[in-house]
């Protein structure tokens, strides 16, 4: 809503003319100011004058000698323009006037022996256009002697307001006037909406067959002369952001902006049978609206029709057939109320939003159609020369019943924190048009017809707070109930800190992917990640599915970085995935677990001159998961090989919590998938379900470290490839004895070891809690360890 302060002055005499101060008041009222545009003429002291005489200059043939009256009698002005004759109404700059933003002061001046008392101005000289060929010739509506700037509605300031959807009343000049009057504690006034007497009787009849139209008013105006509207009206419309079209259309728009009430002008001669019928649309009915689009209607639409066919889409847009045109002489002024949800659905169904529908769908003052009709008739008479016929025809099907609201004083106090006396509450409400009276502990208020948002006690509390001013309420700090992060939240932060400490950066990717991304991963047909929940109204294919895995987003991010010259990529994301599992009971949302995903590309390890950076591979992924688990005290992580896409068939594993619960997979991306993303080398990915990692592991208890000496020995075994290192470690650890640790430290395949076998060396450390182990004990443990691995099919290397 764009508010011209000059226009606004028709309805309220504000105590200030400073646009900033008025803007602040509007902000405080909840009408957010989006901008202020200041408009000032480039001239000062230019008056409207009439050219009385025009004669040739005695000594010059390029200029003429005129006498011009600007209200104080004829005076000589020499003029170089030829586009006017005596009788013309023109803008005149008399001595003392200043043009061109102060750079061009006008003084008395002799031109070839004749004194010129000023100049007649061109549009260019007044900063009103590029036309410098002749002077501006005004029409007879400009009164001689008046300030020309006034006619241009200048100076002015236009405040652009963002009106919240609950306040259709504020989408009008009078609505803003009422708000500001209430704020400043002053009066405001309505424009002249009194009825104009009409000649004779009109044949017009109005019938409403559908009570989604609660009331409809119509009046016939005859003898309209189509043409442009007066300059002041055009300027006001333009400042409100509405294009001037013709006097009849402009008046209709002007009344809408002024009163917030949409109106419509039909060409009455095109209304068949002089009869208006408001009815539901017929199935298959067609109507071409003013924008030239043919609309297919149905019973859910509401139509204004004449005897023969639909002539406009109720509350939304007029029809082409009944539109006023240059040949129109008789007009039907239509002003109606419409059911807001009906208009909302209708405008949405036809993808047709108009200034009218925008107001009707929010709720237009139900008491406004009659005054607005009178107002429009008056303005048509004033600007288009029309004369009303008969009386206003009014048909009402649903009378307006205002809400009576009982506002307990206690609700005001409980909500706002201040006990306000009933009188103060009433003082705040009355200027808004709320009729309010006090009882012992309540204020009883009647809803104004223009405030659809005021129906409940809390609605009035807001009005009181708004008018009193939000700044008047003293700040306080409530006593919290004792808060803090949960164990899971603390552990998630530690997990993230561990990830960044391990060199990974946190990524954020969209919660969507397309079918293409799942195909590129090459997931198995029965993989649950294949069945994603579909977005019903996606904007792009890439956003058509809710993600079932974080990997596509992370791989996209990796690709982006590689493409921009970052070769070593280490990214993680913690976010939700969405599983399209069996539809649970009505109204239950799908499972949407949080998942930790990561991707590694390039090399890892410390960097620098001559450094030993290691290209990442599946082991990097497993090592990362182990380090993460250690960082949050999860205990040992079990690793089991799997062959599952999108992982490399021989370089992927599931990872298990120490209680055996699987919490994710990690490994190298299948080369096909890596190629699909254009990523070089081995690409490491992992996806871990976060909940099992964050689960409170319970209280841990201190273990006293042994002060006894340790005994280390190494064993190298030759093993079939089917025996994993983990199995060897487990077999040794299972030997009953003082084993402190078992750590593999060498792996060998090649000469000396047969195909299908490998050699694994482990270092075993023994330590008793209470004594030094004897060499016999160590030797015995060694034998038992060898025996335990032999059970797995391993033999001591060199002893095969």
């Amino acid at each position, binding site marked *: 809503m764009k508010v011209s302060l000059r226009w606004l002055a028709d309805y309220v005499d504000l105590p200030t003319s400073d646009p900033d101060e008025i803007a602040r008041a509007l902000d*405080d009222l909840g009408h957010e100011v989006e901008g202020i545009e200041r408009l000032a003429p480039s001239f000062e002291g230019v008056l409207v004058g009439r050219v009385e005489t025009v004669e040739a200059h005695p000594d010059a043939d390029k200029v003429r000698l005129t006498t011009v009256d600007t209200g104080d009698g004829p005076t000589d002005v020499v003029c170089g323009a030829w586009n006017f004759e005596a009788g013309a109404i023109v803008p005149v700059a008399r001595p003392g006037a200043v043009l061109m933003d102060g750079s061009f002061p006008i003084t008395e001046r002799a031109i070839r022996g004749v004194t010129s008392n000023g100049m007649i101005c061109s549009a260019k000289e007044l900063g009103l256009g590029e036309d410098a060929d002749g002077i501006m010739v005004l029409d007879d509506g400009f009164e001689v002697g008046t300030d020309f700037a006034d006619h241009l509605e200048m100076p002015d300031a236009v405040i652009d307001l963002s009106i919240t959807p609950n306040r259709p009343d504020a989408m009008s000049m009078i609505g803003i006037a009422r708000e500001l009057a209430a704020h400043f504690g002053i009066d405001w006034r309505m424009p002249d909406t009194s009825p104009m007497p009409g000649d004779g009787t009109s044949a017009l009849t109005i019938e409403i067959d559908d009570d989604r139209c609660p009331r409809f008013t119509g009046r016939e105006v005859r003898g309209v002369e189509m043409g442009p509207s007066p300059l002041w009206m055009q300027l006001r419309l333009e400042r409100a952001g509405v294009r001037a079209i013709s006097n009849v259309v402009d008046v209709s728009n002007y009344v809408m902006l002024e009163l917030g009430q949409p109106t419509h002008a039909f060409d009455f001669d095109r209304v068949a049978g002089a009869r208006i019928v408001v009815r539901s649309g017929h199935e298959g009915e067609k109507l071409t609206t003013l924008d030239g689009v043919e609309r297919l209607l149905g019973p859910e639409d509401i139509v204004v029709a004449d005897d023969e066919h639909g002539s406009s889409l109720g509350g939304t847009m007029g029809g082409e057939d009944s539109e006023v045109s240059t040949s129109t002489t008789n007009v039907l002024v239509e002003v109606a109320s419409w059911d807001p949800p009906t208009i909302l659905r209708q405008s949405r169904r036809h993808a047709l939003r108009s200034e009218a529908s925008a107001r009707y769908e929010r709720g237009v003052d139900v008491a406004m159609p009659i005054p607005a009709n009178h107002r429009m008739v008056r303005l048509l008479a004033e600007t288009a020369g029309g004369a009303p016929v008969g009386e206003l025809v009014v048909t009402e099907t649903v009378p307006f019943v205002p809400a009576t609201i009982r506002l307990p004083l206690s609700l005001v106090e409980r909500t706002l924190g201040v006990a306000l006396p009933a009188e103060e509450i009433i003082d705040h409400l009355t200027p808004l048009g709320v009729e309010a009276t006090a009882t012992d502990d309540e204020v009883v208020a009647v809803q104004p017809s223009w405030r659809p948002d005021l129906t409940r006690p*809390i*609605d009035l*509390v807001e009005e009181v707070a708004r008018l009193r001013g939000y700044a008047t309420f003293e700040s306080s700090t409530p006593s919290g109930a004792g808060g803090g992060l949960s164990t899971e939240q603390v552990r998630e932060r530690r997990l993230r800190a561990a*990830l960044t400490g391990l060199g990974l950066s946190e990524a954020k990717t969209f919660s969507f992917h397309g079918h293409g991304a799942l195909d590129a991963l090459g997931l198995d047909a029965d993989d649950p990640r294949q069945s994603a929940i579909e977005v019903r109204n996606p*904007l792009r294919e890439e956003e058509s599915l809710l993600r079932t895995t974080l990997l596509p987003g992370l791989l996209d991010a990796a690709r*982006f970085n590689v493409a921009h010259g970052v070769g070593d990529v280490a990214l993680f994301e913690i976010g939700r995935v969405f599983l399209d599992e069996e539809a649970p009971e009505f*109204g239950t949302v799908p499972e949407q677990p949080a998942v930790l995903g990561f991707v590694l590309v390039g090399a890892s390890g410390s960097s620098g001159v001559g*450094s030993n950076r290691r290209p990442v591979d599946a082991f990097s992924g497993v090592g990362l998961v182990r380090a993460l688990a250690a960082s949050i005290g999860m205990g040992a992580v079990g690793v089991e090989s799997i062959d599952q896409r999108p992982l490399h068939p021989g370089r992927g594993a599931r990872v298990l919590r120490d209680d055996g619960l699987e919490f994710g997979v990690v490994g190298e991306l299948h080369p096909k998938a890596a190629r699909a993303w254009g990523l070089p080398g081995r690409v490491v990915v992992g996806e871990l379900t976060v909940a099992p990692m964050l689960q409170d592991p319970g209280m841990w208890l201190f273990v006293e470290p042994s002060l006894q000496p340790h005994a280390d020995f190494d064993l190298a075994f030759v093993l079939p490839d089917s025996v994993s290192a983990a199995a060897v470690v487990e077999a040794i650890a299972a030997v009953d004895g003082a084993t402190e640790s078992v750590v593999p430290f060498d792996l060998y395949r090649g000469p000396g070891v047969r195909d299908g076998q490998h050699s694994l060396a482990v270092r075993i450390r023994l330590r008793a809690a209470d004594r030094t182990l004897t060499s016999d004990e160590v030797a015995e443990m060694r034998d038992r360890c060898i025996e335990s691995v032999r059970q797995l099919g391993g033999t001591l290397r060199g002893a095969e």
Partner: protein
Amino acid sequence: MDPRLETLRTQAPGLVDDADSLEALDAVEQQVVGRASPIAEIRRGLGQLPAEERPIVGRAVKEVADEIAVLVDRRRSVLEDEAETALLAADAVDLTVPMDERATGTHHLITSTIDEIVDIFVGLGYRVADGPEVETGWYNFDALNTPADHPARAESDTLYVDFGEPEDEMLLRTQTSPMQARYMQDHDPPVHVVVPGRVFRNETLDATHSPVFHQVEGLAVDTDITFGDLKGTLEHFAREFFGPSTGTRFRPHFFPFTEPSAEVDVTCFGCDGSGCKVCGGPGWVEVLGCGMVDPAVFDAVGYDSAGVTGFAFGMGVERMAMARHGLTHIRHLWENDLRVLGQFR
């Protein structure tokens, strides 16, 4: 005293000091106290001396020998130090050469901003909750006093998903506010909770909008929460988050689920109110929306609207983070460009 001892005593310090290497010192030591030295000779001749002289000469020899030993030890330690110093000098490196560099990653700006916001409220006694991103129309709209034909529910604004029965109206939550309803259903008052999370709108990515973004929702409900409490709480937040001298302005606004409602502006942190890129001129930056919980919301979740009052607020994480750090385009938060992520601290 034996003149040989006398001579030795006089000469030894010079000899020891002149030794310029550990090897030379060893040779000097040999010369003055070694087997061929006068001291050794005298010691060997002790047996021939008369019994009463033996202890006297013996003491004298020991005295001189000890003196020399101290000199040698002192010299040795000096020479050893010199040798080590030379070794260390040879071992010097240019530490400006990167050699064993450890890379650490960074938290995403959205995460660190959320943590920062959340921690301020945790300090005020709030708990932190998390809610589903795929949400029902009831929680996202109906429970929040947003009628079925509200424009925000249109497919042009809200992303809907196919899940469950068609009448389920499953959608990607457009705000973190549905957690207000869920949390109140699960917890009796008093409630003090903040809810950070992802939200979604049917929008294309441009400089300031994204179909996916983040909000932090807050809710406080008790028997005596007032509009003043709302103001005080958010003023405290603004000072903590934007700086101690931050001013705050509450403007009336409209949200379906709060009444009275307000938008909150803070004094610009990019300028002193004279106008800059951050505030776009007026010296105020709009940072969040808030209001007193509408009684209809209490009714919807089964709270006694006559017995409790509360306030709620919501803020856009990206908006606040971008304004504070001068990010020029929201895509920088989603591209995961490591050159950008590396700037986050």
